[in-house]
């Protein structure tokens, strides 16, 4: 017997079952396409007898790399060469992101300045740098460095121990001594101490209402403790001064024109976008918030740090993340000006081994990894500062 209202529906008209069928269908198609592409590629590679697999990573690379954060020579294998590339990409991306956020914030705030000249200059900066393709900017900075700067033998020597020439910026660093490592550890210890102090001061403030000068105490600790360690360690002052030997400078630390041009180009370009994001974020905070904070008697510095910025950050962080990702991805334009980033080294590897599919897959994996990592960190931070709804 059929109960009223429980009319039998054909399964293809049941929304739940129907959506299952569609999902299953799509999955099968995607899997089939993936399988087809894979097997077709493998067949074609075999037909043309092109080598496949990742065995080449073990082979000797036999090419030199201009700059590296780890020891590398042509006798090392491809894996190490590619690692050098990843580290070089990380180096320029990390420093680039830090500088971009700083510069972008300054220009974004300047754009909102009541001072007509400052806000106009910031506006011009933003409009000009946003609108010129970043590749052209890179070519410009790189050409400027090698065309304008003198040869090593006529290097500029603005201050003792520092040289500027078309091979880069070379400066003296303190010579190797165990004290420097100890000072590094001290700085880490001070950072932990500052964190603990800040929490304690906050708790005390909530309990008793008495403020504690956290900022100045932190500065005092940061300066004094490493200095004491340096004195205790015998106060070494020996420097590793660069010297012109043969064609180039030896010793010290050098910043290559390729790195400098890439960093400068990426930072100046991306900062223009970040400035607009910062401006939008600050303007998104209702004027009433500032007025209310002032009515409560907060000083203007506190208005900014306690009321405006926490609310602006919520608007700023998501688009800022995407600018960070842009900067990391744009760093692959290094190929054009000869900075040995990951793409540049992977390209050389592809060309020397002929294994383009593996090479391109690695490039994709590395950039995907970097992007996901950045997103994960920024999402975590975003959650932390997001509005807590009760």
């Amino acid at each position: 017997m059929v109960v009223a209202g429980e009319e039998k529906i054909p399964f293809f008209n049941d929304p739940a079952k129907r959506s299952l069928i569609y999902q299953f269908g799509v999955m099968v198609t995607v899997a089939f396409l993936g399988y087809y592409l894979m097997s077709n590629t493998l067949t074609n590679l075999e037909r043309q007898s092109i080598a496949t697999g990742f065995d080449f990573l073990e082979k000797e690379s036999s090419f030199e790399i201009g700059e590296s954060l780890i020891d590398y020579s042509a006798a090392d294998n491809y894996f190490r060469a590619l690692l050098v590339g990843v580290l070089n990409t990380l180096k320029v991306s990390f420093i680039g992101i830090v500088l971009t956020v700083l510069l972008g914030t300054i220009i974004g705030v300047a754009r909102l300045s009541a001072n007509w000249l400052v806000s106009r200059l910031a506006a011009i900066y933003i409009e000009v740098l946003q609108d010129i393709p970043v590749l052209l900017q890179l070519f410009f900075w790189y050409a400027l460095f090698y065309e304008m700067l003198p040869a090593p033998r006529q290097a500029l020597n603005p201050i003792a121990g520092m040289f500027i020439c078309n091979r880069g910026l070379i400066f003296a660093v303190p010579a190797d001594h165990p004290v420097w490592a100890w000072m590094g550890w001290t700085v880490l210890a001070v950072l932990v101490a500052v964190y603990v102090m800040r929490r304690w001061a906050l708790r005390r403030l909530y309990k008793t209402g008495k403020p504690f000068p956290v900022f100045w105490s932190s500065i005092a600790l940061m300066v004094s403790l490493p200095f004491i360690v340096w004195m205790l360690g015998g106060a070494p002052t020996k420097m590793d001064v660069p010297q012109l030997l043969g064609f180039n400078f030896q010793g010290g630390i050098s910043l290559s024109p390729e790195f400098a041009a890439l960093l400068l180009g990426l930072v100046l370009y991306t900062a223009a976008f970040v400035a607009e994001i910062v401006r939008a974020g600050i303007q998104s905070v209702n004027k009433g918030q500032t007025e209310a904070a002032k009515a409560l008697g907060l000083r203007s510095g506190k208005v900014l740090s306690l009321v405006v910025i926490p609310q602006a950050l919520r608007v700023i962080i998501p688009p800022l993340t995407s600018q960070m990702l842009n900067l990391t991805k744009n760093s692959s334009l290094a190929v054009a000006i000869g900075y040995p980033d990951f793409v540049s080294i992977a390209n050389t590897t592809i060309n020397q081994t002929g294994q383009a599919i593996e090479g391109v897959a690695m490039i994709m994996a590395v950039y995907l990894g970097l992007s996901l990592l950045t997103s994960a960190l920024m999402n975590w931070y975003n959650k932390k500062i997001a509005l807590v709804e009760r």
Partner: protein
Amino acid sequence: MKKLGFVGVMVAVFFMVGSATAGTLDDVKAKGYVQVGVNGDLFGFGKPDGKGVWKGLDVDTGRAIAVAVFGDPNKIKFIPLTAITRFTALQSGEIDVLCRNATRTLSRETALGLNFVQVNYYDGQGFLVPKALGVKSAKELDGAAVCVLPGTTTELNVADYFRSTGMKMKPVVIENTAELAKAFFAGRCDCLTSDASQLAGTRAVAPKPDDYIILPEIISKEPLAPVVRHGDDQWYDIVNMSVLAMINAEEMGITSKNIDEMLKSKDPKVQRFLGVSPGNGKALGLDEKFAYNIVKMVGNYGEVFDRNVGKNTLLKIERGLNALWKDGGLMYSPPFK
């Protein structure tokens, strides 16, 4: 579900048709032109002149192939490629043949899935330095910053050379030939290393050519040859014989000027070569006149050499290794029969 399966089959059929490849010769004939990968920035080998006409030894080699297939040197499309992109372009079928001063090596013949045909230029790697540097030999280059193209045999050779002589180097690698030369002339590096012919070409277009010298050391063997993909023997034969036809013509004393008189020659070797007595063309799947057309429209090897890189050009390169075997060089053609 039945419908979906049908769509799946449709998709499968579509892809299978797409990937079924015909022979390169049929593809080329269907397209109506040969796609040749060339350098694009290398004076004397592959670079458009002021009017946009492609000029160079490799360019003329490409034209010879177009003539062999179509009897027309203009049924050709030049695709400028960097050292990094050249082999991938060939592997993926973007071009039919690569005439871009590529060195024949074992790993390229095997792991890269390529076949090199007859060498069209025997080269060796050298160093170009500014005179002002005061260097007389490559052995004095310890600690130098070296400008080099990435992804080349040159990049490996120079690393080998500095390693074996116990010297240090700092490579500056820029993918684009013109950008690399600019960086070198501006003093970004102490020396530029490449094949000697390329160095001559780079120096010829320098702001002040006389301020630069090529060091006497030649640190490698660089047999430069056109390249095709593995697995298409007919196309390999056509490209190979197109290059050899130019060399054979020079051996027989046939030039683009005297070729019409040579048609009347009683020599059976000449008759076979020029297609007066047929057979060669059919064997290759080409017109019987293919060798005649190549010499008539492009020239013999000596003419092509002299026109592009010889003594009367800016490059002023001697024949040297590239002379005929009769004159002490390495150019030698198997018989055309």
